């Protein structure tokens, strides 16, 4: 993404209109820069370890045991939260919930800002959220909050996140956890 804040007359900014696209395979996106995955992972870990109330938002693709990869990833999400000292707040489905969500324990793509406001979250990781809903939510979060957003995507990534990691599967998540452990040590935490 390029800037925090609205884009034109729309309340929701769109990075592609500022010329920022998803990163090419093998690379990552940090703000509007295409960088090596390792650099982005390091910065992502740093953001989570230094900002207030870091939170991981796992989506349906890792919450439910629908395939072997999901089962593995769930373990890694838990481990990642431990290493980063992060909370876990699930985005367990995408429905507009009636009558309202409980922002202390859940996040909804239709108004993700409520959960971020309520818990004063300053850094977050999206993982296992279907790309469309991640993109809808990330645009809203970017304009409505000062939360540092990190997308850990198993597909092509999300240019509206501040850091986007693409093609993230079990191996890459393990790599991220290793890097996070290193960064944590460096920070003396």
């Amino acid at each position, binding site marked *: 993404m390029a800037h925090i804040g609205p884009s034109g007359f729309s309340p929701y900014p769109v990075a592609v209109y500022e010329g920022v696209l998803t990163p090419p395979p093998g690379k990552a996106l940090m703000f509007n820069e295409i960088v090596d995955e390792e650099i982005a992972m390091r910065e992502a870990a740093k953001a989570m370890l230094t900002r207030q109330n870091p939170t991981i938002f796992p989506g349906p693709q890792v919450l439910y045991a629908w395939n072997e990869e999901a089962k593995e990833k769930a373990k890694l999400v838990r481990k990642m939260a431990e290493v980063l000292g992060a909370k876990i707040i699930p985005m367990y489905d995408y429905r507009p919930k*009636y009558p309202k969500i409980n922002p202390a324990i859940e996040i909804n793509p239709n108004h993700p800002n409520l959960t971020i406001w309520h818990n004063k979250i300053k850094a977050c990781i999206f993982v296992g959220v279907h790309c469309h809903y991640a993109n809808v939510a990330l645009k809203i979060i970017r304009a409505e909050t000062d939360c540092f957003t990190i997308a850990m995507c198993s597909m092509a990534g999300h240019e509206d996140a501040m850091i986007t990691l693409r093609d993230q599967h079990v191996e890459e998540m393990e790599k991220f956890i290793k890097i996070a452990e290193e960064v944590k040590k460096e920070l003396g935490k």
Partner: protein
Amino acid sequence: MSYKIYKINEELKDFMPKEIIDLEEKATWGNPKRGVMDLPYTKELIEEHSLCAGCPESMALRYIIASLPNPEDTIIVNSTGCTSLVFPHIALHTVHSLFGNQNAVASGIKRVLEWRFPDKVKDVVVLAGDGATVDIGLDCTLQSFFRQEKITTICFDNEVYANTGGQESGLTVKGHVFKMAPKGKQWDKVPMWQLAIDSGCHYVARLTVSSPKRVEQVIKKAIYVAREVGPTYVHLYTPCILEIGLNSDDGLDEMRARDKERFAFFEYMTPQAEEVINRIKEEGLL
């Protein structure tokens, strides 16, 4: 069966709200004998929704969802109207596309699921109001019957466009005054159940939702016949108590009154459908 999509990974279970854990543990999955009698004891597949207090349509939805013989592999296609306010809260894969195209969308889904999963049973059910089924969507509804699509179509007939504020529909009775019919409706209620028979449906039923058990029987028959033979149609009276000036607790009495006249229970089946129904009965599934 696709129960796996409701199964929460152990490592993340601590963070899930109770309603989602209950869905995995206390809903009835993999049991074709499930039915309305489970309602008080099991987790329902519908969460809180925004229909009016006492709305008979909300009762109908609960009975129908509780009666699906194969919920973990059932797709429901919906249309615009009051029902579409409930659909986000139904714990199944459902579709809202356009106003009136529900039977067309359902046809595409059913055919592709048969092609993609030749060894699995995937039931496709259409659930829409009278405006969607009989007015704006009549072409798509009847054409799916003509084409013998293996889907179940359920019409919630409240005899009015309720969600848009009470306008006359094709299923309004003659003479009734609604918006857009300020002099009273000039023509007769469309006998949709008869059109369904003439258009090739193999099982057709007309009833109110005053008796949960009867709704369950009809829904199960309609789904089993659609699975094996061809299109089926269920016409349910779910009065809009708001638009006909009744109180929240009047819905049941209104339906019981209509049970004796224009919504007297009516059932039709072709010989092929009867064969399926008899077999299912023998298997103890009805």
